[in-house]
């Protein structure tokens, strides 16, 4: 089946810093989504982005489907950005990546 790897696995930032999270996948996909799981377990859908670039406030995402990767950019990070970031891709079903655990300190 398709493999979805995220890097880095862990990231520690000070408030105000910028970061880039990466998602690599091993096969062509029909769907790519980025999620943020907060410390209480809630998964929030950040982007639906099978290709191209999208921006939402301090967050933006770019997917290069032909090269099988996606990037999530977080600018001016805040403590509320802490949690785990998952990318998820779909061929016949949605598969979650390994996740990046982000901690933002004041």
């Amino acid at each position, binding site marked *: 089946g398709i493999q979805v790897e995220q890097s880095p696995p862990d990231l520690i930032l000070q408030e105000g810093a910028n970061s880039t999270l990466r998602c690599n996948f091993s096969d062509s996909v*029909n*769907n790519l*989504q980025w999620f943020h799981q907060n410390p209480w377990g*809630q998964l929030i859908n950040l982007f639906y982005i099978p290709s191209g670039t999208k921006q939402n406030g301090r967050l933006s995402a770019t997917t290069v489907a032909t090269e099988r990767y996606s990037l999530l950019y977080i600018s001016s990070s805040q403590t509320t950005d802490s949690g785990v970031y998952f990318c998820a891709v779909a061929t016949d079903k949605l598969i*979650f990546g390994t*996740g990046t655990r982000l901690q933002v300190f004041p």
Partner: protein
Amino acid sequence: DTEVTQTPKHLVMGMTNKKSLKCEQHMGHRAMYWYKQKAKKPPELMFVYSYEKLSINESVPSRFSPECPNSSLLNLHLHALQPEDSALYLCASSSTDRVNEKLFFGSGTQLSVL
């Protein structure tokens, strides 16, 4: 209203108990999902319902029994669980079960099996 509601938020049960997890959405979505998430791992798909019919069962043990009484409700009935079934159980919904749909998740039920 873009909310998926799950109850209860926490559940502790013994291995001989029978309990149910509930999920509700009022977005008019016709596909609903159960995912299981162990600590520090990504969510894993268990079941998919499409138009109230079970369309995907990811070889889940029969001690987990899903039910979709109507288009807004999804239940997961639990019986004779094992301690290794302790996990966060997440419900999700989407407009249809096509793989290119955006998923909306509930906040989950944290289950502990003693």
